[in-house]
């Protein structure tokens, strides 16, 4: 009971001091609120964008790509009708099957082509895939907007799947017909079997899926493979790249970092921005609290001296001031978390015009409880830190000096 009543008194004294400086206390609280709100909104938004891009890019594209080196003699030819294919595909396969870090891999034959619809014609490329192995690489079902996924490629040899931006440009939808013209002059009538979206234009503008067998036949290059796509178990471990260049001479190996440099950098920039802005704001808030407590300590030296003479210990005095800064911190941080949630929610429901880069209806926002806890912890930690030194100063007030001083 004894500890109980002392704690009660200490908290009571602390709140009396806060009440005596309502305006400043409120301002300090708002400072913390601002810092925590900014942190939460920014981290929700930035990680939302990061996660969205990660999901779209890294699940939409392979972690590593093996492709054939450009053949010099053929590149000198004016019209290139043969595409460079990987020569020792059997060897590559045997090598890859032995690798620990590979989750799955799939062959592709990619060829330049012109797609012609009733309203438009576009040069681009056609991804010839083997549906059963491509299924292990890309979760297309989740991305489908209309029509069917890879299965349709198995059923019909002229079925094609299109990225949404590409489909829009061609002004086609599922069931419509297209003509494909290949470099060797061959052409074929295709039917759109499905339309998908990964959410970013770099993919949705160009990506197509088409049965590899049909493409090989049309090109007259039976069994030709131009690319092998790899999915790694641990994406950050790209040691395979150097390891593979020896046994697989004359191939180009590219990993996800090479292919998505701008996105990797963008993620980093967003992270840095989030942390530095929030840190700066909390620093300002912390400084505000430091100032308030410091001037309270100076003003209340007599009170502190009296409290010490009537039996309050140095630790009690520290607590009186820490309680003040922690209450400011906790209140401000909780408000900040609430406000952060509200603002994040509003942003997440704000309709977004499709930009050139991302294709979404609203901003991608993360709502992870962990960020709120982190924000509150940061807010409170800032106030404890900024309250500590004034509290320490208060506890070292010498009552004799103060009592004599008057």
């Amino acid at each position, binding site marked *: 009971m004894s500890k109980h009543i002392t704690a009660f*008194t200490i908290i009571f004294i602390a709140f009396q001091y806060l009440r005596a400086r309502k305006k400043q206390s409120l301002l300090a609280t708002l400072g913390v609120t601002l810092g925590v709100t900014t942190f939460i909104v920014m981290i929700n938004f930035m990680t939302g964008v990061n996660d969205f891009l990660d999901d779209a890019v890294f699940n939409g594209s392979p972690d590593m790509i093996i492709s054939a080196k450009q053949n010099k003699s053929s590149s000198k030819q004016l019209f290139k009708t043969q595409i460079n294919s990987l020569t020792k595909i059997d060897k590559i396969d045997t090598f890859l099957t032995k690798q620990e870090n590979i989750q799955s891999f799939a062959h592709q034959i990619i060829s330049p082509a012109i797609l012609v619809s009733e309203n438009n014609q576009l040069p681009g490329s056609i991804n010839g895939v083997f549906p059963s192995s491509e299924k292990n690489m890309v979760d297309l079902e989740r991305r489908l907007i209309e029509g069917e996924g890879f299965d349709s490629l198995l059923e019909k040899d002229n079925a094609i799947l299109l990225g949404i931006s590409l489909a829009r440009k061609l002004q086609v939808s599922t069931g419509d017909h297209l003509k494909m013209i290949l470099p060797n002059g061959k052409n074929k009538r295709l039917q759109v079997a499905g339309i998908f979206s990964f959410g970013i234009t770099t993919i949705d503008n160009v990506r197509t899926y088409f049965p590899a067998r049909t493409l090989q036949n049309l090109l007259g290059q039976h069994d030709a493979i131009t690319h092998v796509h790899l999915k790694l178990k641990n994406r950050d471990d790209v040691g395979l790249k150097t390891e593979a260049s020896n046994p697989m001479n004359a191939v180009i190996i590219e990993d996800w970092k090479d292919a998505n440099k701008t996105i990797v950098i963008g993620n980093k920039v967003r992270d840095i921005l989030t942390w530095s802005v929030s840190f700066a704001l909390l620093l300002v808030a912390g400084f505000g609290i430091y100032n308030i407590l410091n001037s309270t300590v100076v003003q209340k030296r007599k009170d502190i001296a009296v409290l010490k003479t009537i039996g309050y210990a140095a630790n009690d005095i520290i607590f009186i001031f820490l309680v003040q800064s922690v209450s400011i911190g906790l209140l401000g941080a909780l408000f900040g978390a609430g406000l952060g949630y509200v603002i994040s929610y509003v942003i997440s429901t704000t309709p977004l015009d499709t930009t050139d880069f991302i294709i979404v209806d609203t901003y991608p926002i993360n709502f992870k409880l962990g960020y709120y806890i982190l924000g509150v912890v940061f807010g409170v930690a800032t106030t404890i830190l900024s309250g500590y030194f004034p509290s320490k100063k208060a506890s070292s007030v010498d009552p004799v000096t103060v009592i004599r001083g008057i």
Partner: protein
Amino acid sequence: MMLETKQINKYFYEPEKHQVLKNISLQITSGELTAVYGESGSGKSTLLYILSTLDRDFEGRLQILNHEIKELSAAELTNFRNQHIGFVYQFHYLLSEFNVLQNIMLPAMKLGAKTKEEIKHDAILLLKELGMQDVAKRASYKLSGGQQQRVAIARALINNPSLIVADEPTGNLDQKNSDMIFDLLKEVTSKREKAVVIATHNPKIYQNSDKAIEMIDGSIRL
């Protein structure tokens, strides 16, 4: 013996080393009001800060209630002071954020030997004895000087300490209030069996105390 000092010497080092208390040996008994008087600068306050355990930076020995004060740890000393010593200053020093009752309750709230209700009850009883129950809820800074000093004495008494130390408690008051405070302290001494030490240069006080100690230039005049 309630309080005993042996050969206390006290030095200050600012602006240069000089001795402020010289070989102070004295004894204070319960139920006695001891007045320490002497000219300004003779060392009364310095002695009282030592007697009330606020200042332990001295040579010699101080025993209160058979405790060797210099041997107590900081935490023990804080508790000891809270429990056994009440201090009254020339400038009452009430906490302005608190009302009269709350100010009186503060030391007991720290001691924590009683419930809040019991402490409140004690505080109201004290105020009644001082004839001040009407102002219990009033902000402390709204009282007159004499009233504030009486509240300060009530605060010094709330934990029922054995020793009350008062440094010029009437120094700031008119004659009427001064008499009233002195009578109050005398009453506390006799009725409550306290040891009370007052520093003063008011002859009316030291002539009417149980024991008077004159200080001259840091020494006790024998």
